[in-house]
């Protein structure tokens, strides 16, 4: 067996050269990585050290099995194969390096151990095929929003050299008699090498040369890696491991714009970004023509880090210098970017930090300002008296219990839209009648209920959220109830995940969950079978934020309706455009197609004649959109409550 690190190169011992370039490469690599770590150390803390079993589970699914990448199957499979080829090759590399540096180790080189050599050559071929697919997609298919950087080309080339050098070395080893056993790939590579007249000592020379090409390329790769977009290869496993296990919301802050104002995890997203564009392809703001690109946002975060690393660089501010206020306000906080991101990046928290900054400077548009002022004074965004909150109930032929005065099993948190929007009040009354008919013991808070603060918080008004939360918690504290049901997914999320309950959080459910339970247990029985083809829109705050996908679908089936899914459903659902406070803001110039219009067209294209919703804001948005999209004759919008009432009315 030959030792490729033995002997002399230009009169210098080869092993000394190997030591020299190894130390140089690792030194440069370590120096750069340490610089990144120092930047992260300057950032604000953000605890992400809890719930390890869950984190490890997520690591296995997202890193080792690459679930989100596989959502786009062509590149997903190719990337998974490149990833695993990389894992094997990295193992082989470190093995070879250790053996080359430390000749007294009593192990063979990786390519001289039969099983490893076989694995390497098989993964080499798979890896090359996958690289060809990646190149075909990048340069021929050219997917929308994929960043076309020179970086990507260099990396594809480098990986190809790494794999090819290994395979050529293996082929030459067959000819020099150094390869043993069944080596299908090496044997195949050996054929053209033999035809070129390479054999014996020449073949042995090729083995050594290829070994060096391979090792030097990988070491070069190591140095190049932390300067390129392929930093994601190093950063993304940690991004996933320290990712948010709940929909992320930055802790109270005065906002962030400069490097040290962000948390380390927010900055880390910039390092992990692979510029793949999945977030952009999913973003309802971008796809409607709003001036926001979640991918570019991540890129700007990366620039913020790079600028602080540059010699004499003091960094810059993200806000206005890199990200315009219009971009910051465009976000609907629908979470599609985060749900799609394979490296666990968190775009929305960065935008919320920027919004807080704008809020502190008082730079917000007039409509939003009016809504927030109303929330702060009247507890609702409609600017109406709190005393009118339960006025919708006046049209009922029974009185709803006041949970502040008598014990109830279920406290119903209606939310602003259901209570104040005159178009939605008939639906709110229908929900009340359903609960009463099913014998549910329920009550409301009357004028003591305030807006949950969910959207104010996402608009960057953290103090207002705190104040609304305190008022609601005080009202809950005075009421007597066992569980909470809400007809508003936005309130659901705030009550479930963001309120600081002092005596333990009560169970908080969405009305579709309660209605399904009532139907399942025959407390509400459909007496009339509804017919027709319907489609269902998953509200962002019900689906992506809270994972409630099944209850509304089961209800629709139970009512006898045929459910056809839109292409974007479940966790891929497309936002109606109202979230994150956008419902209070004006459309901006340059909008091509509002998210809600895109959505009603998608619904109509399924062949369904009805779009069923489970969120009051969706109902409002889609009612408007079906008119502006010219679908008034083709599509009706119904809240699921309306259908349940229709089917169960005796």
């Amino acid at each position, binding site marked *: 067996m030959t030792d490729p690190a033995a002997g002399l190169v230009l009169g210098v011992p080869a092993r000394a050269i190997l030591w020299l370039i190894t130390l140089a490469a690792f030194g440069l690599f370590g120096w750069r990585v340490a610089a990144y770590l120092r930047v992260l150390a300057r950032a604000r803390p953000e605890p992400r050290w809890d719930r390890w079993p869950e984190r490890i589970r997520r690591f296995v699914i997202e890193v080792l099995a690459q679930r989100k990448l596989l959502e786009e199957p062509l590149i997903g499979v190719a990337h998974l194969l490149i990833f695993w080829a990389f894992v094997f090759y990295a193992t082989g590399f470190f093995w070879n390096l250790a053996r080359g540096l430390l000749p007294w180790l009593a192990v063979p080189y990786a390519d001289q151990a039969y099983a490893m050599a076989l694995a390497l050559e098989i993964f080499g071929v798979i890896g090359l095929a996958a690289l060809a697919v990646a190149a075909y997609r990048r340069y021929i298919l050219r997917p929308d929003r994929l960043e076309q950087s020179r970086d990507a080309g260099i990396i594809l080339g480098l990986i190809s050299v790494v794999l090819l050098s290994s395979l050529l070395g293996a082929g030459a080893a067959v000819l020099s008699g150094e390869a043993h056993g069944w080596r299908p790939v090496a044997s195949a590579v050996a054929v053209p090498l033999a035809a070129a007249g390479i054999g014996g000592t020449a073949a042995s020379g090729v083995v050594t040369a290829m070994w060096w090409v391979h090792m030097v390329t990988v070491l070069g790769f190591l140095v190049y890696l932390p300067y390129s977009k392929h930093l994601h290869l190093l950063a993304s496993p940690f991004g996933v491991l320290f990712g948010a296990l709940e929909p992320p919301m930055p802790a109270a802050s005065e906002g962030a714009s400069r490097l040290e104002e962000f948390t380390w995890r927010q900055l880390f997203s910039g390092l992990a970004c692979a510029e793949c564009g999945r977030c952009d392809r999913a973003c309802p703001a971008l796809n409607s023509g709003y001036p926001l690109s979640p991918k570019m946002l991540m890129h700007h975060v990366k620039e913020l880090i790079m600028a602080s690393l540059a010699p004499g660089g003091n960094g810059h501010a993200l806000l206005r210098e890199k990200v315009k206020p219009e971009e910051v306000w465009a976000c609907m906080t629908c979470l599609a970017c985060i749900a799609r991101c394979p490296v666990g990046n968190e775009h929305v928290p960065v935008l919320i930090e920027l919004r807080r900054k704008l*809020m*502190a400077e*008082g730079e917000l548009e*007039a409509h939003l300002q009016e809504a927030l002022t109303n929330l*702060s*004074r009247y507890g609702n965004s409609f600017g109406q*008296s709190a*005393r009118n909150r339960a006025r919708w109930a006046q049209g009922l032929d029974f009185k709803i219990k006041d949970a502040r005065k008598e014990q109830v099993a279920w406290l119903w948190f209606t939310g602003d839209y259901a209570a104040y929007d005159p178009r939605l009040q008939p639906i709110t009354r229908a929900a009340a009648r359903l609960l009463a008919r099913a014998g549910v013991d329920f009550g409301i808070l009357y004028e003591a209920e305030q807006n949950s603060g969910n959207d104010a918080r996402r608009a960057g008004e953290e*103090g207002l959220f705190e*104040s609304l939360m305190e008022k609601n918690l005080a009202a809950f504290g005075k009421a007597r109830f066992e569980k909470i049901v809400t007809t508003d997914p936005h309130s659901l999320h705030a009550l479930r995940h963001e309120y600081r309950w002092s005596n333990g959080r009560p169970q908080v459910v969405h009305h579709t969950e309660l209605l399904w339970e009532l139907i399942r247990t025959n407390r509400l029985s459909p007496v009339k079978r509804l017919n027709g083809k319907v489609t269902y829109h998953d509200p962002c705050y019900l689906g992506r934020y809270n994972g409630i996908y099944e209850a509304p679908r089961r209800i629709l089936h139970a009512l006898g309706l045929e459910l056809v899914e839109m292409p974007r459903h479940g966790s891929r659902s497309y936002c109606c455009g109202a979230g994150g406070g956008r419902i209070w803001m004006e459309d901006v110039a340059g909008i091509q197609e509002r998210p809600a219009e895109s959505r009603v067209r998608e619904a109509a294209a399924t062949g369904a004649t009805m779009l069923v919703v489970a969120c009051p804001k969706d109902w409002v948005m889609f009612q408007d959109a079906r008119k502006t999209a010219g679908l008034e004759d083709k599509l009706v919008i119904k809240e699921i409550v309306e259908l349940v009432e229709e089917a169960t009315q005796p």
Partner: protein
Amino acid sequence: MNLLVLMRMVPDVVEELEIAPDGKSLDREALRLIASESDDHALEEALLLKERYGGKVTVVVPDAPEVGDLLYTAAAKGADRVIRLRGIKTGLGVAALARSCAAALQATPGLLPVNLILTGTQAIEDLDGLVAPLVAHHLGLPYIGVVTAVTEIADGKASVVKEFQAGYRGEFQIALPAVLGVQSAEKPPRYVPVAKVRAAMKSVKIEECEVPQPTPAALEGIEVLAMSKPEVAGRAAMLEGSPEEVAGKLCDLLAERGLL
């Protein structure tokens, strides 16, 4: 530049207003008070002037329920001193209110003189816009109302824009010190996040001043006889049907009323 903003709390008409059992006043128990809208503009204009010329902004408000919110919000927006005037009865007529406010300003040590007093040109309780000019009268200062901008302050004079009907505007020069009745500030009143107001509650001290002597509830010779709530007209009708039908009905209606 020393700027004084005189603000007041008025009934919030978002809440339903009730007439008190005596039939002559508002039921103060049932109503909620809110900062008068044009006073908010006066504060904004003062803050803009402070940003432009430097100096101090002092906000003075007759005591009322929830007046703390107004003063802390003003401080959070950038007011340097916030003062509550005690001893002014609520529900005063405008003349008495103006006389009390002027007396309190004069009696409070260290408050006057200032370069400019800004206040709302009107309030929902003062549609004739009398408080501002009467305060100026009692202080012996020149007054100009319905101001929409202060364009320049130099050499002891201010140039201001005053609005007339139908968008006509005039630019006036007024000698300082003076009182301005502000209709609207140059920019909409700024938003101040709740966190900043809460921080002001912790760090800012509201000063209190006593009005020197009790003032009569109204000028002699005037007495409230009765107040009444608005009458609901209920004459609106919705026209329904297709656009053509609605247009037809509309034409018929207009013809019926002799408008065509």
